[in-house]
Every structure is written in structure tokens, then in C-alpha cells.
């Protein structure tokens, strides 16, 4: 098992864990922090912290979930630290154009609107929305992950959905 190899001192085996989880988790960090530079910083920080604390990972079978929890915390910290800084929206235009088969411009614009609306949510609402709808994590696990009660999380998701609808409706009716 890769985790066991790393704990025994095989540092290079950690590269396989990085390769396995980086893209999926980069997605969450990118949506939480709003730009690729911060997202990669948070993700790299999460990986190095995970490596340093690997012996504390109680269930190696769930290394991915454990790493994700670290990432959620790093995004919170980094987001709070840079909260007042003006955000830049770096949309990967090339990837978006390649992903769209029929109306690349429409889709790119729509995706940019979503990203912009998402960044206008309060951080805790954005976090709850992403965990619930994008990462598809259940409320109980979200509660364990964030330390926030289920009721409060449901309320945050509800508020996030309302606000997203409001923001995106404004865009479309403009």
C-alpha cells in the first residue's frame, strides 16, 4: 500500500498519491479561492501537511478523504487571510473551449458567470455549496469535516442556492 510505503521512508511513493488526487482536489481549491495560484498553494500546502502528519492518518484506506479534510481547512485559512484582497478570475479558456462542442463562446461565458457568482457567496456558504453539490458529500460527513452542525450546514446550502439563483438570474435577465 502506498501510504504504508511512504511511512516506512519511501518518499518517492508519495508522488503516486499526488498524481491520484491533485486534479480533483484542485477543482475544490480553485472554486473556493477563486484563482489558480491560490488554489495550487493551498493544495501544495495540504499535500505537504499530509505527508508530515501521515502517521496520524488513522485509516489509510480513506487517505483521500483525510487529505480532503486538510485541504478544506487550508482553503479556509488561505481564504480568510486573503479575504480582503481583490480576486482575479482566471478562467481556463482553452480547457473550456475544448470541452464545448457546439457553442464554445456561450459555454465559456456561462462558466465564467458561474465562477463569478460563486465568488460572491460568503465563504461559508460557498464551502457548503461546493461540498454538497459539487463534491457530493453527505451532510453528516460535511459536519464531521467542517465541525459545523448539520442544521447550520443545510441553512448555508439553502442560502447559497438562493443567492446563486439570484445572481445568475440577474446576469441572464440583463
Amino acid at each position, binding site marked *: *500500500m502506498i*501510504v*504504508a*510505503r511512504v*511511512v*516506512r*521512508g519511501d*518518499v*518517492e511513493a*508519495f*508522488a503516486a498519491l*499526488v*498524481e491520484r488526487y*491533485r*486534479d*480533483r482536489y*484542485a*477543482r475544490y481549491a*480553485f*472554486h473556493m479561492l477563486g484563482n*489558480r495560484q491560490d*488554489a*495550487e498553494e493551498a*493544495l*501544495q500546502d495540504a*499535500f*505537504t501537511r499530509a*505527508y*508530515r*502528519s501521515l*502517521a*496520524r*492518518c*488513522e*485509516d*489509510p*484506506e480513506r487517505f483521500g478523504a483525510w487529505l480532503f479534510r486538510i485541504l478544506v481547512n487550508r482553503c479556509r485559512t488561505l481564504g480568510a487571510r486573503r479575504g480582503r484582497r481583490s480576486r482575479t478570475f482566471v478562467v*481556463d479558456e482553452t*480547457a*473550456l473551449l475544448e*470541452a464545448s462542442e457546439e457553442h464554445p463562446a*456561450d459555454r465559456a461565458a*456561462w*462558466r465564467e458567470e*458561474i465562477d463569478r457568482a*460563486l465568488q460572491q457567496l460568503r465563504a461559508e456558504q460557498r464551502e457548503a455549496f*461546493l461540498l454538497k*453539490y*459539487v463534491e457530493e458529500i453527505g451532510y453528516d460527513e460535511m459536519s464531521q469535516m467542517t465541525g459545523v452542525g448539520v442544521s447550520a450546514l443545510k441553512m448555508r446550502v439553502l442560502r447559497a*442556492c438562493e443567492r*446563486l*439563483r439570484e445572481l*445568475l*438570474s440577474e446576469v*441572464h*435577465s440583463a
Partner: protein
Amino acid sequence: MRDENELPLREIARELREPVPVSESFDARVMRAVRALPRHRFGFWLRLTAPRTITIKPLTWGVLAASLIVFAAAGVPRAFGALHRATRPIATALFPSSAKAPVKSQRVQFVLVAPDAKKVAVVGDFNGWDAQHAEYQAKHRGGGVWSVTAPVPLGHHRYSFVVDDSVWVADPTAPRVVDNDFGTPNSAIVVEELK
């Protein structure tokens, strides 16, 4: 174009689930950072756990504890009161009082020599593998010797030391058991009711 009155969340979520690839240099940066971390600690502690490196024979502690009890029974001067209180748990572990019954657990002394450690805790199936459990925090007794005496239920158990909240170390004085899937070293202990 999309219906402005219908903004399905599923569609939004689907867009947001698109992968966000990292830059090409990301893996190299992470691995560079990881390699810069103090890897030698793993090797150091693994060597430390080798039975040939450190040996604390239970008999040694038994003789020590017995000596202290005899010393205490002979009438300990008040000046040695503190020493007596500090070592009482050891004696309790090895020579438990028969006054209380029924006994469902025994106080067991765990000892680890870890000269460079700043913190040592005992984790096991008897405390939920909780390195922060207050009762199982070892104290530095000097000379790099850390020990704690804590209750362990009767029966077979697995346990380990956790040094500085991060490094798991098997007890060099106890039988090793097969490492768990995570690769952390475990020791075995059998706690029996002493008569």
C-alpha cells in the same frame, strides 16, 4: 440559450465538476517540498524500535519497584515523600492491591526511551488510539526515559507510542504484532488479573 427563470443547480454543479488541471510543474513542486521535510525521523525511529537497539527488561523494573516498596515500607522520610508518590503507580502495576474487587483493569506502566522526544503518548485499542487522551500522556523521568502508568482492561491489546504527535513507535520491550494497513508499528500486551 438557457431559460432565465430556470437555473437548475444540477447544471451549475455539473459545470463546476469539470476538472481543474494543475500546472505542469505542480507535482515537481510538491515533491521538492516533501523531500525537504525531515525524512530521517522515520528512519531514526524505526531504528529505535529495533529490539537490539533498546532493551528495557521488565525484570529490571520489577526489581526497582520492589526495592522502592521495601524502602517505602521501612519508613520513608518525609523528604522522600514526593519520590514515593511518583513511583507508587509502578508498584501498583506490578503488585496491585487486592483490596478492591472485582478488578476489571490493571494499571500498567509503559516506558519508552526517547532522548530527543518532546512529547510521548500511549495509544491503543484501550483508549481509542487517541494520542491526546489525558491519562496516557507519558512524563519525562530524566535521561530520555518517558513513562506513564495507566489503566488497561483485562485481555489482549494492541498499542503503540506516539512521539511528538507524529511518529509511531513500537514498544521495544514488548512483542511486536503485524503492522496494520497503515504501516504503523504495534506492540502486543496481555493484561491479566493478578491474584
